[in-house]
Protein backbone atom coordinates (compact mmCIF):
# COMPACT_ATOMS: atom_id res chain seq x y z
CA UNK A 1 0.00 0.00 0.00
CA UNK A 2 1.56 3.26 -1.06
CA UNK A 3 0.89 6.53 0.68
CA UNK A 4 0.13 9.38 -1.66
CA UNK A 5 3.18 11.63 -1.72
CA UNK A 6 2.54 15.19 -0.67
CA UNK A 7 3.09 17.88 -3.31
CA UNK A 8 6.49 19.38 -2.74
CA UNK A 9 6.51 22.75 -1.07
CA UNK A 10 7.97 25.91 -2.53
CA UNK A 11 9.14 28.16 0.30
CA UNK A 12 9.91 31.81 -0.47
CA UNK A 13 13.41 33.11 0.17
CA UNK A 14 13.43 36.25 2.28
CA UNK A 15 15.30 38.39 4.79
CA UNK A 16 14.47 39.83 8.16
CA UNK A 17 15.31 43.52 8.36
CA UNK A 18 16.31 42.84 11.92
CA UNK A 19 19.52 41.43 10.45
CA UNK A 20 20.61 45.00 9.71
CA UNK A 21 19.36 46.56 12.93
CA UNK A 22 22.85 47.52 14.19
CA UNK A 23 23.25 49.68 11.09
CA UNK A 24 19.72 50.99 10.53
CA UNK A 25 19.54 54.71 11.17
CA UNK A 26 23.29 54.78 11.80
CA UNK A 27 24.79 54.05 8.40
CA UNK A 28 21.79 52.65 6.52
CA UNK A 29 18.43 54.17 5.80
CA UNK A 30 15.37 52.01 5.20
CA UNK A 31 15.83 52.68 1.48
CA UNK A 32 19.39 51.38 1.73
CA UNK A 33 18.18 48.21 3.47
CA UNK A 34 15.68 47.53 0.69
CA UNK A 35 18.33 48.08 -1.97
CA UNK A 36 20.66 45.78 -0.07
CA UNK A 37 17.98 43.07 0.16
CA UNK A 38 17.19 43.37 -3.52
CA UNK A 39 20.83 42.66 -4.36
CA UNK A 40 20.56 39.26 -2.69
CA UNK A 41 17.70 38.00 -4.84
CA UNK A 42 15.40 37.68 -1.82
CA UNK A 43 11.72 38.06 -2.72
CA UNK A 44 10.18 38.82 0.68
CA UNK A 45 11.04 40.36 4.02
CA UNK A 46 10.23 40.65 7.68
CA UNK A 47 9.67 44.03 9.24
CA UNK A 48 9.32 45.03 12.87
CA UNK A 49 6.65 47.46 14.02
CA UNK A 50 9.55 49.54 15.35
CA UNK A 51 10.77 50.24 11.84
CA UNK A 52 7.45 51.84 10.90
CA UNK A 53 7.98 55.59 11.03
CA UNK A 54 5.30 57.08 13.22
CA UNK A 55 4.24 53.70 14.65
CA UNK A 56 1.48 53.01 15.54
CA UNK A 57 0.10 55.72 13.26
CA UNK A 58 2.33 55.96 10.19
CA UNK A 59 1.57 58.87 7.88
CA UNK A 60 0.05 58.16 4.46
CA UNK A 61 3.27 59.63 3.08
CA UNK A 62 5.38 57.03 4.86
CA UNK A 63 3.02 54.21 3.83
CA UNK A 64 3.27 55.35 0.21
CA UNK A 65 7.03 55.41 0.48
CA UNK A 66 7.03 51.91 1.96
CA UNK A 67 4.97 50.53 -0.92
CA UNK A 68 7.18 52.36 -3.39
CA UNK A 69 10.16 50.53 -1.90
CA UNK A 70 8.36 47.17 -2.14
CA UNK A 71 7.56 47.79 -5.80
CA UNK A 72 10.91 49.28 -6.76
CA UNK A 73 12.86 46.43 -5.23
CA UNK A 74 10.37 43.62 -6.02
CA UNK A 75 10.00 42.61 -2.37
CA UNK A 76 6.85 41.14 -0.81
CA UNK A 77 5.91 41.76 2.82
CA UNK A 78 6.14 38.40 4.65
CA UNK A 79 6.04 38.84 8.41
CA UNK A 80 5.60 41.75 10.79
CA UNK A 81 7.28 41.32 14.16
CA UNK A 82 5.16 42.82 16.92
CA UNK A 83 4.79 42.64 20.68
CA UNK A 84 1.62 41.64 22.48
CA UNK A 85 1.92 44.08 25.37
CA UNK A 86 0.17 43.11 28.59
CA UNK A 87 1.93 45.52 30.97
CA UNK A 88 1.91 48.87 29.23
CA UNK A 89 1.28 50.74 32.46
CA UNK A 90 2.45 50.62 36.03
CA UNK A 91 0.24 48.53 38.26
CA UNK A 92 -1.73 45.40 37.42
CA UNK A 93 -1.81 43.60 34.11
CA UNK A 94 -4.01 45.07 31.43
CA UNK A 95 -7.51 43.66 30.95
CA UNK A 96 -8.19 41.31 28.04
CA UNK A 97 -10.11 44.08 26.32
CA UNK A 98 -7.20 46.50 26.59
CA UNK A 99 -4.76 43.89 25.27
CA UNK A 100 -7.06 43.02 22.36
CA UNK A 101 -7.32 46.72 21.46
CA UNK A 102 -3.53 46.86 21.17
CA UNK A 103 -3.50 43.68 19.07
CA UNK A 104 -6.18 45.06 16.75
CA UNK A 105 -4.04 48.12 16.20
CA UNK A 106 -1.10 45.98 15.08
CA UNK A 107 -3.36 43.75 12.94
CA UNK A 108 -4.63 46.83 11.14
CA UNK A 109 -1.10 48.12 10.57
CA UNK A 110 0.00 44.67 9.31
CA UNK A 111 -2.93 44.60 6.93
CA UNK A 112 -2.20 48.11 5.70
CA UNK A 113 1.40 47.13 5.00
CA UNK A 114 0.60 43.80 3.37
CA UNK A 115 1.80 41.37 6.03
CA UNK A 116 -0.10 38.10 6.28
CA UNK A 117 1.92 36.70 9.15
CA UNK A 118 2.99 38.10 12.47
CA UNK A 119 5.65 37.12 14.93
CA UNK A 120 3.60 37.78 18.05
CA UNK A 121 5.67 38.13 21.21
CA UNK A 122 3.52 36.95 24.09
CA UNK A 123 4.68 38.16 27.49
CA UNK A 124 6.99 35.54 28.99
CA UNK A 125 8.14 35.10 32.51
CA UNK A 126 11.46 33.33 32.19
CA UNK A 127 14.34 32.56 29.86
CA UNK A 128 12.70 29.48 28.39
CA UNK A 129 9.82 31.78 27.44
CA UNK A 130 7.02 30.19 29.43
CA UNK A 131 4.06 32.46 28.73
CA UNK A 132 2.47 34.61 31.41
CA UNK A 133 -0.64 32.71 32.59
CA UNK A 134 -3.92 33.80 31.05
CA UNK A 135 -2.66 34.41 27.50
CA UNK A 136 -5.22 31.99 26.02
CA UNK A 137 -8.02 34.26 27.07
CA UNK A 138 -6.96 37.42 25.19
CA UNK A 139 -5.48 35.61 22.22
CA UNK A 140 -8.76 33.75 21.75
CA UNK A 141 -10.65 37.06 21.89
CA UNK A 142 -8.28 38.44 19.26
CA UNK A 143 -8.86 35.57 16.80
CA UNK A 144 -11.89 37.13 15.03
CA UNK A 145 -9.84 40.27 14.42
CA UNK A 146 -6.93 38.25 13.07
CA UNK A 147 -9.50 36.76 10.69
CA UNK A 148 -10.87 40.17 9.81
CA UNK A 149 -7.44 41.64 9.04
CA UNK A 150 -6.21 38.40 7.48
CA UNK A 151 -3.16 37.91 9.64
CA UNK A 152 -1.77 34.89 11.46
CA UNK A 153 -0.12 35.25 14.84
CA UNK A 154 2.96 33.15 15.41
CA UNK A 155 4.75 32.45 18.63
CA UNK A 156 8.48 32.27 17.98
CA UNK A 157 10.26 29.10 19.04
CA UNK A 158 13.71 30.45 19.85
CA UNK A 159 16.56 28.75 21.66
CA UNK A 160 16.70 27.95 24.60
CA UNK A 161 13.08 27.06 23.81
CA UNK A 162 12.82 23.87 21.75
CA UNK A 163 9.97 22.15 20.01
CA UNK A 164 9.77 19.79 22.99
CA UNK A 165 9.81 22.50 25.66
CA UNK A 166 6.66 21.62 27.65
CA UNK A 167 4.77 24.88 27.04
CA UNK A 168 4.93 24.40 23.26
CA UNK A 169 2.74 21.32 23.38
CA UNK A 170 0.90 21.84 26.65
CA UNK A 171 -0.02 25.44 26.09
CA UNK A 172 0.28 26.56 22.46
CA UNK A 173 -0.49 23.34 20.58
CA UNK A 174 -3.25 22.57 23.04
CA UNK A 175 -4.76 26.02 22.37
CA UNK A 176 -4.62 25.55 18.61
CA UNK A 177 -6.27 22.14 18.78
CA UNK A 178 -8.90 23.20 21.27
CA UNK A 179 -9.93 26.32 19.31
CA UNK A 180 -9.33 24.78 15.88
CA UNK A 181 -7.91 28.15 14.82
CA UNK A 182 -5.72 28.67 11.81
CA UNK A 183 -4.83 32.19 13.03
CA UNK A 184 -2.30 31.17 15.64
CA UNK A 185 0.85 29.10 15.22
CA UNK A 186 4.63 29.05 15.34
CA UNK A 187 7.57 30.84 13.81
CA UNK A 188 10.26 28.22 14.26
CA UNK A 189 13.61 29.93 14.55
CA UNK A 190 16.26 27.67 13.04
CA UNK A 191 18.52 28.45 15.99
CA UNK A 192 16.48 25.89 17.88
CA UNK A 193 18.20 23.22 15.76
CA UNK A 194 21.70 24.56 16.35
CA UNK A 195 24.09 21.94 17.70
CA UNK A 196 27.12 24.01 18.69
CA UNK A 197 28.37 27.59 18.88
CA UNK A 198 29.30 29.17 15.57
CA UNK A 199 32.58 30.96 14.97
CA UNK A 200 32.91 34.08 17.05
CA UNK A 201 30.15 33.02 19.45
CA UNK A 202 32.08 30.39 21.43
CA UNK A 203 32.44 32.46 24.58
CA UNK A 204 28.96 33.89 24.75
CA UNK A 205 27.45 32.53 27.96
CA UNK A 206 23.88 33.12 26.79
CA UNK A 207 23.84 30.13 24.52
CA UNK A 208 23.78 26.41 25.32
CA UNK A 209 23.32 23.62 22.87
CA UNK A 210 22.92 20.58 25.13
CA UNK A 211 19.15 20.36 24.56
CA UNK A 212 18.03 21.50 21.12
CA UNK A 213 15.24 20.60 18.68
CA UNK A 214 15.74 17.68 16.31
CA UNK A 215 14.99 18.31 12.63
CA UNK A 216 12.20 15.70 12.48
CA UNK A 217 10.36 17.41 15.32
CA UNK A 218 9.42 20.20 12.93
CA UNK A 219 7.05 18.04 10.87
CA UNK A 220 4.26 18.01 13.42
CA UNK A 221 4.31 21.80 13.57
CA UNK A 222 4.33 22.59 9.89
CA UNK A 223 0.53 22.88 9.56
CA UNK A 224 0.67 25.71 12.12
CA UNK A 225 3.67 27.47 10.72
CA UNK A 226 3.72 30.05 7.91
CA UNK A 227 7.01 31.84 8.43
CA UNK A 228 10.31 30.68 9.91
CA UNK A 229 13.44 32.56 10.85
CA UNK A 230 16.34 30.95 9.06
CA UNK A 231 18.64 32.05 11.86
CA UNK A 232 22.40 32.14 11.46
CA UNK A 233 25.29 33.44 13.47
CA UNK A 234 28.21 32.87 11.10
CA UNK A 235 28.50 32.16 7.40
CA UNK A 236 31.88 31.04 6.17
CA UNK A 237 33.54 32.24 2.97
CA UNK A 238 32.21 29.20 1.11
CA UNK A 239 28.64 30.31 1.83
CA UNK A 240 28.06 27.52 4.34
CA UNK A 241 26.54 27.48 7.81
CA UNK A 242 27.96 24.51 9.69
CA UNK A 243 26.22 24.43 13.06
CA UNK A 244 22.56 24.05 12.01
CA UNK A 245 21.31 21.09 9.88
CA UNK A 246 19.85 23.46 7.29
CA UNK A 247 19.56 21.02 4.41
CA UNK A 248 17.90 18.38 6.51
CA UNK A 249 15.34 20.75 8.03
CA UNK A 250 14.45 22.40 4.72
CA UNK A 251 14.16 19.05 2.94
CA UNK A 252 11.66 17.92 5.58
CA UNK A 253 9.69 21.12 5.07
CA UNK A 254 9.60 20.84 1.29
CA UNK A 255 8.83 17.12 1.33
CA UNK A 256 5.86 17.87 3.56
CA UNK A 257 4.54 20.46 1.16
CA UNK A 258 5.49 23.53 3.16
CA UNK A 259 5.36 26.75 1.12
CA UNK A 260 5.83 29.49 3.68
CA UNK A 261 8.49 32.15 4.10
CA UNK A 262 12.05 31.44 5.14
CA UNK A 263 13.57 34.66 6.42
CA UNK A 264 17.31 34.99 6.90
CA UNK A 265 17.94 36.42 10.32
CA UNK A 266 21.51 37.31 11.23
CA UNK A 267 22.18 37.33 14.96
CA UNK A 268 25.90 36.74 15.26
CA UNK A 269 28.95 38.14 16.97
CA UNK A 270 29.26 41.20 14.71
CA UNK A 271 25.86 42.34 15.87
CA UNK A 272 26.41 41.55 19.54
CA UNK A 273 29.71 43.42 19.57
CA UNK A 274 28.69 46.31 17.31
CA UNK A 275 28.37 48.76 20.16
CA UNK A 276 31.48 47.74 22.08
CA UNK A 277 33.92 49.98 20.27
CA UNK A 278 34.26 51.91 17.07
CA UNK A 279 36.45 49.11 15.66
CA UNK A 280 33.70 46.59 16.35
CA UNK A 281 31.14 48.87 14.79
CA UNK A 282 33.34 49.10 11.70
CA UNK A 283 33.42 45.30 11.52
CA UNK A 284 29.63 45.20 11.77
CA UNK A 285 29.24 47.87 9.10
CA UNK A 286 31.22 45.81 6.64
CA UNK A 287 30.44 42.33 7.91
CA UNK A 288 26.69 42.26 8.44
CA UNK A 289 25.59 42.94 4.85
CA UNK A 290 28.25 40.47 3.74
CA UNK A 291 26.95 37.80 6.13
CA UNK A 292 23.39 38.23 4.86
CA UNK A 293 24.57 38.02 1.24
CA UNK A 294 26.43 34.80 2.02
CA UNK A 295 23.39 33.31 3.72
CA UNK A 296 21.17 34.18 0.80
CA UNK A 297 23.60 32.42 -1.54
CA UNK A 298 23.39 29.32 0.65
CA UNK A 299 19.59 29.47 0.67
CA UNK A 300 19.59 29.83 -3.09
CA UNK A 301 21.86 26.80 -3.35
CA UNK A 302 19.56 24.76 -1.10
CA UNK A 303 16.24 25.85 -2.62
CA UNK A 304 17.48 26.04 -6.19
CA UNK A 305 16.02 29.55 -6.62
Amino acid sequence: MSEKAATKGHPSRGISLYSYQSLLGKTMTLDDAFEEMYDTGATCFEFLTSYIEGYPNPSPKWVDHYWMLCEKYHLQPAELGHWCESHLHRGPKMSDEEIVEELKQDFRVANLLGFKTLRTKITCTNEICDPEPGWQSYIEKALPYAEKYDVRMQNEVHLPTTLHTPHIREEYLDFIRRTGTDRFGFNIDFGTFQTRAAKGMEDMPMFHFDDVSKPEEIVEFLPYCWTCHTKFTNMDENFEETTIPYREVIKLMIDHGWSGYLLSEYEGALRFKAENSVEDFANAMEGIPDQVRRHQIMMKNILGY
Partner: protein
Amino acid sequence: MVEFQAVQQRGFHNYYDENGNIAGFEFKFVPRYYKGLWFTQCRFGNVEVDGEVYDRDCISIIYDGIAYSREELFDLKRYWQFRTPIVVRVPKKGGLSVGYHDVVMNFGWVLNYNGALEKEKDGSGLGNMAHMFGTKNERRMLLCR
Protein backbone atom coordinates in the same frame (compact mmCIF):
# COMPACT_ATOMS: atom_id res chain seq x y z
CA MET B 1 23.52 57.02 2.76
CA VAL B 2 26.37 55.68 0.67
CA GLU B 3 29.06 53.23 1.74
CA PHE B 4 32.40 54.90 2.45
CA GLN B 5 34.06 53.12 -0.46
CA ALA B 6 33.92 54.65 -3.94
CA VAL B 7 32.71 51.39 -5.49
CA GLN B 8 29.48 50.45 -3.78
CA GLN B 9 28.56 46.86 -2.98
CA ARG B 10 24.98 47.91 -2.37
CA GLY B 11 23.55 47.87 -5.89
CA PHE B 12 26.00 45.26 -7.23
CA HIS B 13 24.03 42.66 -9.20
CA ASN B 14 23.41 41.29 -12.67
CA TYR B 15 20.72 43.02 -14.69
CA TYR B 16 18.20 41.43 -17.02
CA ASP B 17 16.83 42.08 -20.48
CA GLU B 18 13.11 42.19 -21.27
CA ASN B 19 13.04 38.40 -21.72
CA GLY B 20 14.41 37.85 -18.24
CA ASN B 21 17.88 36.83 -19.39
CA ILE B 22 20.97 38.21 -17.69
CA ALA B 23 22.31 40.95 -19.95
CA GLY B 24 25.21 42.18 -17.83
CA PHE B 25 26.07 43.50 -14.42
CA GLU B 26 25.88 46.83 -12.68
CA PHE B 27 27.22 48.56 -9.59
CA LYS B 28 27.11 52.02 -8.13
CA PHE B 29 29.99 54.44 -7.91
CA VAL B 30 30.50 57.66 -6.01
CA PRO B 31 33.80 59.57 -6.09
CA ARG B 32 35.68 59.83 -2.82
CA TYR B 33 36.37 63.50 -3.54
CA TYR B 34 35.10 66.14 -1.12
CA LYS B 35 32.95 67.96 -3.67
CA GLY B 36 30.56 67.31 -6.53
CA LEU B 37 31.65 67.54 -10.16
CA TRP B 38 30.35 68.87 -13.45
CA PHE B 39 29.81 65.91 -15.74
CA THR B 40 31.54 67.84 -18.52
CA GLN B 41 34.71 67.61 -16.43
CA CYS B 42 34.39 63.90 -15.65
CA ARG B 43 36.64 61.37 -17.38
CA PHE B 44 35.30 57.82 -17.24
CA GLY B 45 37.72 54.95 -17.77
CA ASN B 46 37.48 51.21 -18.22
CA VAL B 47 35.86 48.82 -15.77
CA GLU B 48 37.85 45.75 -14.73
CA VAL B 49 36.45 42.66 -13.06
CA ASP B 50 38.79 39.89 -11.93
CA GLY B 51 41.34 41.25 -14.39
CA GLU B 52 39.02 41.27 -17.39
CA VAL B 53 38.74 44.72 -19.01
CA TYR B 54 35.41 46.20 -20.13
CA ASP B 55 35.98 49.09 -22.48
CA ARG B 56 34.76 52.48 -21.32
CA ASP B 57 32.95 53.03 -24.60
CA CYS B 58 30.82 49.92 -24.02
CA ILE B 59 29.49 50.87 -20.59
CA SER B 60 26.51 53.03 -19.65
CA ILE B 61 26.50 55.59 -16.90
CA ILE B 62 23.08 56.06 -15.31
CA TYR B 63 22.47 59.28 -13.42
CA ASP B 64 19.10 60.20 -11.96
CA GLY B 65 17.48 57.43 -13.98
CA ILE B 66 18.93 58.43 -17.37
CA ALA B 67 21.57 56.36 -19.16
CA TYR B 68 24.47 58.10 -20.92
CA SER B 69 27.50 56.99 -22.85
CA ARG B 70 30.89 58.38 -21.86
CA GLU B 71 30.85 60.52 -24.96
CA GLU B 72 27.41 61.96 -24.17
CA LEU B 73 28.54 63.01 -20.72
CA PHE B 74 31.14 65.39 -22.17
CA ASP B 75 28.22 67.59 -23.20
CA LEU B 76 26.07 67.15 -20.10
CA LYS B 77 26.23 70.48 -18.27
CA ARG B 78 24.81 68.99 -15.16
CA TYR B 79 26.25 68.85 -11.67
CA TRP B 80 26.97 65.41 -10.25
CA GLN B 81 25.70 65.94 -6.74
CA PHE B 82 28.00 65.23 -3.84
CA ARG B 83 27.75 61.68 -2.43
CA THR B 84 25.17 60.74 -5.03
CA PRO B 85 26.10 57.52 -6.84
CA ILE B 86 25.86 56.82 -10.51
CA VAL B 87 25.02 53.33 -11.74
CA VAL B 88 27.72 51.80 -13.93
CA ARG B 89 26.08 49.28 -16.25
CA VAL B 90 28.30 46.83 -18.08
CA PRO B 91 26.86 44.54 -20.77
CA LYS B 92 28.13 40.96 -20.48
CA LYS B 93 26.32 37.95 -21.79
CA GLY B 94 25.40 35.71 -18.87
CA GLY B 95 26.61 38.31 -16.40
CA LEU B 96 28.95 37.63 -13.52
CA SER B 97 28.90 34.43 -11.47
CA VAL B 98 27.55 34.34 -7.94
CA GLY B 99 30.41 34.93 -5.51
CA TYR B 100 33.21 37.39 -4.81
CA HIS B 101 34.62 39.63 -7.54
CA ASP B 102 37.42 42.17 -7.66
CA VAL B 103 35.89 45.22 -9.30
CA VAL B 104 37.90 48.21 -10.53
CA MET B 105 36.42 51.50 -11.70
CA ASN B 106 38.86 53.83 -13.43
CA PHE B 107 37.77 57.40 -13.12
CA GLY B 108 39.29 60.86 -13.14
CA TRP B 109 38.25 64.45 -13.63
CA VAL B 110 39.52 67.87 -14.64
CA LEU B 111 40.98 69.61 -11.63
CA ASN B 112 41.46 73.35 -11.91
CA TYR B 113 44.15 73.66 -9.30
CA ASN B 114 47.21 72.12 -7.72
CA GLY B 115 48.64 71.06 -11.05
CA ALA B 116 49.02 71.70 -14.74
CA LEU B 117 45.86 72.13 -16.78
CA GLU B 118 44.54 69.08 -18.58
CA LYS B 119 46.68 68.42 -21.60
CA GLU B 120 44.38 66.07 -23.47
CA LYS B 121 41.82 68.54 -24.68
CA ASP B 122 39.87 65.76 -26.37
CA GLY B 123 39.16 64.13 -23.03
CA SER B 124 40.67 60.81 -24.04
CA GLY B 125 42.54 60.45 -20.78
CA LEU B 126 41.47 60.52 -17.15
CA GLY B 127 41.82 64.23 -16.46
CA ASN B 128 44.64 65.84 -14.52
CA MET B 129 44.04 64.85 -10.92
CA ALA B 130 45.83 61.50 -10.82
CA HIS B 131 48.92 62.96 -9.10
CA MET B 132 46.75 63.96 -6.15
CA PHE B 133 44.09 61.29 -5.90
CA GLY B 134 44.79 58.42 -8.29
CA THR B 135 42.28 57.12 -10.79
CA LYS B 136 41.89 53.47 -9.79
CA ASN B 137 39.03 52.56 -7.46
CA GLU B 138 39.09 48.91 -6.38
CA ARG B 139 36.86 46.78 -4.25
CA ARG B 140 36.19 43.09 -3.63
CA MET B 141 32.45 42.55 -3.60
CA LEU B 142 29.96 39.72 -3.19
CA LEU B 143 27.44 39.20 -5.98
CA CYS B 144 24.29 37.18 -5.19
CA ARG B 145 22.01 37.52 -8.20
